[in-house]
């Protein structure tokens, strides 16, 4: 029982680490939005083009954050290495 608790703890910590890439994702997205707002303020007539380009850029930046989320979910609910981890720690 104790080894299972240890395994669950390790899995949760690793999921949290996987999610922590959200820091950098958010930072990158903020830079994209910041530049887009700046260029819209400079050239308001090009606002529509800049907005659509901004959305595509934001989506591209978001991909790494989404991968982190998926890795965290796979670790928590469908861990392929669970047996190995239990035998290693227990």
């Amino acid at each position, binding site marked *: 029982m104790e080894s299972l608790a240890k395994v669950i703890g390790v899995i949760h910590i690793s999921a949290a680490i996987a999610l922590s890439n959200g820091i950098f994702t958010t930072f990158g997205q903020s830079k994209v939005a910041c530049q887009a707002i700046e260029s819209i303020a400079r050239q308001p007539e090009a606002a529509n083009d800049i907005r659509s380009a901004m959305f*595509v850029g934001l989506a591209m930046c978001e*991909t790494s954050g989404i991968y982190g*989320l*998926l890795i965290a979910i796979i670790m928590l*609910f469908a861990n392929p290495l669970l047996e190995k981890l239990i035998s290693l720690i227990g």
Partner: protein
Amino acid sequence: MNLNIDNLWVLNVAGIEVWITETIFNTWIIMAFLIVLALIARLKLKSFKEIPTGAQNVIELVVEIFDNFATETLGEKLSYISPWYFMVFVYLLSCCLFSIFGFRAPSADWATTFALAFASFSLMIIMGFKHRKGEYLKGFFTPHFIFFPMNLIGELAKPVSLSFRLFGNMLSGTIILTLYYGLTPLFVQFGIPVFLHAFFDVIFGAIQTYIFVIISLMYVSGAASD
């Protein structure tokens, strides 16, 4: 709201178990709704006039907006595939709006998003071969044939990243709403979740639908136009 995808019933087709999951069932509901809408639009088409009124206005407006959008991204020559992406757009949007009613959105299942992304990927390859023939194959070996493995991985990553992006976004909304419904007492579960639904289902769903379609269109135009 549930994190797991429930299995509703199991069919036996020629000795093979076919699982009818919540996703498939919800997809059928959305399909029925969209087919009925399409049939109504088709029946209305007979009574269309030169000067539009009422429902004709709405139908023409929607189709025209999407056609212009596809033509802008793809160019005049390739815009004949825009009906397929119109279907993808409407389907994904109704998936997101479906989860407002408390059901699980079909796009919060990787099977649905991967099917759509794989269709985009196949369409990209077919359009590339159709419009550029040998040139498209040659593109894998530029700038030098050593780069072939890298180009191949880059191409194969396209459907995966396309499907994971949509799936992850829809799943994150589902997870947050499930946590909210699971952790809060009953008296705050009326009224307040409206804002969460509006943010995670309507806004995120609309943005991700737009992005899915525009990135697919960009892949197709990148493969097919030189």
